């Protein structure tokens, strides 16, 4: 009984930070305190969904997340293939460098990255921000991609080679379909990271190109903010990572998701 009670207390304490956000999102005139706030409403959600600025911010987040996911998964799978299939000294070093890059403090690169983006006139471009995000997620994606491909028996490919298929052909027609669960984990991981990233767009994007993370940051220091709108907006913005995790963990199993996370 004692373990159960302890866990209930922990669970309730963990819920505390969520309370304000969820309550305020459904109140007419919420303040930073609970209670008051003028009655239940869905109005915050309808006005947020209707407001151009919120829609633009969410659209920008979606652009960054989808773009990064598409580029990262494609390039990572193609690069992971030779890493898994061809054996050489160079390949071993490649793996070390990949893991090393996984631990690289990206925030420490933001000064020269900013300078580079300003000098090359790439600053404030969503497209080029996608490429920066892609570069930051590629080492990890390639590294777990290799372990997915390792699990595909080489013999399955050999029959295709006998039939005249190239490496590219067997990768596309045999390996990729077999590692789809792994690719989906990689894609969700990349999407969630790009969707949530704050400091890269904070430095590389401004104004109408800002994603939701940067828009929400703007409310921290702003007076006269409609807290109901912010709360509703934050809830909508928080939903995709949670839904994607649920969806993929149902499909591939939670243990599998974790295996990917642990290798990184």
């Amino acid at each position, binding site marked *: 009984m004692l373990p159960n009670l302890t866990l209930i207390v922990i669970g309730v304490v963990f819920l505390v930070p969520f309370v*304000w956000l969820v309550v305020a999102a459904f109140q007419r005139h919420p303040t930073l305190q*609970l209670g008051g706030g003028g009655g239940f409403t869905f109005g915050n959600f309808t006005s947020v969904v209707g407001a151009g600025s919120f829609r633009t911010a969410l659209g920008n987040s979606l652009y960054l997340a989808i773009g990064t996911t598409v580029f990262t998964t494609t390039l990572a799978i193609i690069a992971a293939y030779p890493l898994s299939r061809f054996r050489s000294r160079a390949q071993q070093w490649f793996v070390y460098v990949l893991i*090393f890059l996984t631990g*690289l403090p990206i925030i420490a690169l933001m*000064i020269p990255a*900013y300078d580079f983006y300003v000098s090359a006139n790439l600053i404030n471009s969503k497209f080029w921000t996608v490429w920066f995000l892609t*570069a930051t997620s*590629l080492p990890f994606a390639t590294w777990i991609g290799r372990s997915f491909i*390792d699990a595909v028996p080489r013999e399955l490919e050999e029959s295709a080679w006998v039939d005249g298929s190239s490496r590219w052909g067997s990768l596309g027609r045999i390996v990729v379909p077999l590692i789809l669960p792994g690719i989906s984990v990689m894609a969700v991981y990349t999407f969630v990271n790009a969707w949530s990233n704050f400091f890269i767009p904070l430095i590389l994007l401004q104004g109408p190109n800002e994603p939701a993370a940067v828009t929400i940051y703007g409310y921290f220091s702003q007076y006269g903010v409609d807290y109901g709108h912010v709360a509703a907006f934050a809830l909508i913005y928080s939903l995709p990572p949670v839904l994607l995790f649920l969806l993929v963990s149902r499909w591939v199993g939670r243990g599998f998701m974790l295996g990917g996370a642990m290798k990184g």
Partner: protein
Amino acid sequence: MRARHLTMKGRRRLTAFIMALPMVVVVLVFLGWPTIWTFVLSFTNMTVTGPAARHYHFIGLDNYRRLFSSGSGLTDSIRRSLYYLVVSAYIGQAAFGFLLAMLMQRCARGLRAAVGAIIVVAWLIPEIVIAWMWFVLLSDGGTAQQAASAAGLHYTSWLFTHPMLSVSLANSWRGVAFSYLLFTAALNDVPNDLIEAAKIDGAGASRRLFRIILPLVSTTILVDLVLITLGTLNDFSLIYAMTGGGPGNASSVLSVFMYRQAFVTYQLAFGTAIAVVMLALGALFAVVYIRILRRQGALNLAR
């Protein structure tokens, strides 16, 4: 025959090279180049960027001399980063996550699923939303103050009085799920017969923990510690959004210290010198991580 073998090997190498090339180019351009430039710029006096910034020149070790002289803020920032690492990552995430995983094993299934879900959701939602939630909870006029005054207590925003503790609490809350999930998976792999046999032999709970369970999950603990160390040392968003590094410099960890020097006071070159320190720390822990993985055999070549 031999010549043919060589050409085949050559062709395979070419294919491997072509396949890895796009990824390598992207990483080199967007990560490799900035890494090199971080070092180069740290020896210059660059301030603003853009056309005007082309006038910077090399000033040798001046940035480093300034950075390592007393009063630069470097040692204080490192001290705060270490506090954040120990309190939020090692205590709040790893130790608490381990206790949580142990506790959950003895709890009812439904309850376990419910609390597990809350913890994982906290881990999944975007950092900036977490920062906002904790900002509202702890700020003046926020929910914590409301609760305190209802209980007849005086409350001044912890964001002012205990900024490092505030951000550490938020980071523990946000990140405990990762350690908890890793430890749950590892604990599930501990054979039950082993525990039962120890029980029959009269080993108490603490003996079972230290002699059987901990040795069996030690690799997981090590991997977890290295991964959260890398993540926590490089963390910027949560702290910067919640406190901005303040009040004053009270919560200015290394990453925030660097950001403020570079993008608030526009001493870009001085900021890159701080970045070099961060890169060195990151490299150190990445090497530790590679060594652990190597010992585990996780890096062995497949086939």
